[in-house]
């Protein structure tokens, strides 16, 4: 077994967990009840996906340790008895150990910014899971095939909202322009493979054209401009994050850090 597969699985899990956590902050604060329910439903789907990937990563890590008789190759939270579990991986790794892309850790901002972040990410996840469900790793394929059904909803819902806000009022249009300005610079990283992605045989750069096509299509309908080439921030996939992730993890991990091994 290659250790890159562990890192790759963690990357998929971290992506889903971090954006699930951010979306969950809307619980009780959505603009109207139905949309509050929608964004938290999406959060729940993503949390479920992250659990599946963490469970698989934990199995891989524990097998790897058994085979090698050593510590896991990548720093990974260790639960009771030194075994990795889905919880230890989510709650006990530090910011530098998280491999999520920068896009998912960007602040919720206003509703427009949350919508745009979800749209960019869902469009990416849709294309990625479509590829992964036919990939060579059976478990990743099974998780992706199942998740793809859910992401189809997320993409349709967030696309509709981008159109509604972009082609809405002058105020909502301005806010979407501001959201594009905030988030666009984090989209380049999605299509630059980290070493573990290359070694796992998943070339994300191949998804870029289809993603651009989807974004262009929706932006046109939303009367929003597709930005020209701008500088793209990278680093998240290798653990170099924006300042936001630290705050997210502080809240997410608080209970396990303060009361180790607490359960309920």
């Amino acid at each position, binding site marked *: 077994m290659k250790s890159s597969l562990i890192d790759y699985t963690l990357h998929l899990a971290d992506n889903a967990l971090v954006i699930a956590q951010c979306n969950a902050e809307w619980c009780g604060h959505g603009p109207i009840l*139905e*949309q509050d*329910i*929608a964004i938290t*439903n*999406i959060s*729940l*789907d*993503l*949390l*479920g*996906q992250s*659990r*599946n990937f963490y469970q698989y990563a934990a199995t891989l890590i524990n097998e790897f340790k058994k085979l090698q008789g050593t510590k896991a190759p990548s720093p990974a939270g260790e639960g009771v008895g030194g075994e990795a579990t889905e919880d230890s991986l989510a709650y006990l790794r530090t910011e530098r150990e998280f491999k999520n892309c920068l896009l998912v850790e960007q602040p919720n901002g206003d509703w427009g910014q949350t919508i745009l972040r979800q749209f960019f990410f869902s469009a990416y996840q849709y294309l990625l899971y479509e590829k992964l469900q036919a990939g060579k790793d*059976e*478990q990743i*394929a*099974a*998780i992706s*095939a*199942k*998740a793809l*059904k*859910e992401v189809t*909803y997320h993409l*349709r*819902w967030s696309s509709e909202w981008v159109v509604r806000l972009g082609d809405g009022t002058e105020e909502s249009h301005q806010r979407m322009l501001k959201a594009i300005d905030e988030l666009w610079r984090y989209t380049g990283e999605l299509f630059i493979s980290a070493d573990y992605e290359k070694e796992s045989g998943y070339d994300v750069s191949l998804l870029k054209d289809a993603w651009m096509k989807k974004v262009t299509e929706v932006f046109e309908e939303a009367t929003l401009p597709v930005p020209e080439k701008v500088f793209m921030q990278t680093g998240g996939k290798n653990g170099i994050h924006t300042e936001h992730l630290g705050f997210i993890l502080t809240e997410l991990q608080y209970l396990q850090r303060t009361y180790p091994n607490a359960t309920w």
Partner: protein
Amino acid sequence: MKIELKNIWKILEQVTDPEVPVLTITDLGIVRDVCPLPASPKGGGEPGFEIIITPTYTGCPAMDMIAMNIKLALIENGYSNIKITSVLSPAWTTDWMSEAGKRKLKEYGIAAPNKKFTIALDGIECPLCNSTNTKLISEFGSTACKALYQCNDCKEPFDYFKCH
């Protein structure tokens, strides 16, 4: 053994979904298989059974409870050597929902999955007055598996169990 397997299925047919209590887990197609297990010291020397289940939605919080309820139902009926395995592939689909399940849903006031509506759109039949003059309020409802509708004729809001 065949008789035993039949009994196990009968017990499973009594276990209900915690979120939609009119449906049983067999109505939903959550139970994929039941396999006999060899007797093991861990299972008290009794021959055991492995129950293979699959989640509806990835994040469905009812799954842990369903697994526990299956175990409890079987223990109550004298089966102690039970293993519950959750599989993801093939992914669960509403195609596996039984006709009885669809009927029970409607009686309960939830519109059953309709293959003509793979995407939730206006026009799902109202489970209360049977009108198709209905409108989609939101693709996301009270649980992951449902969408929110309102009937334009009887004005009642209702849930639609989405095709998945």
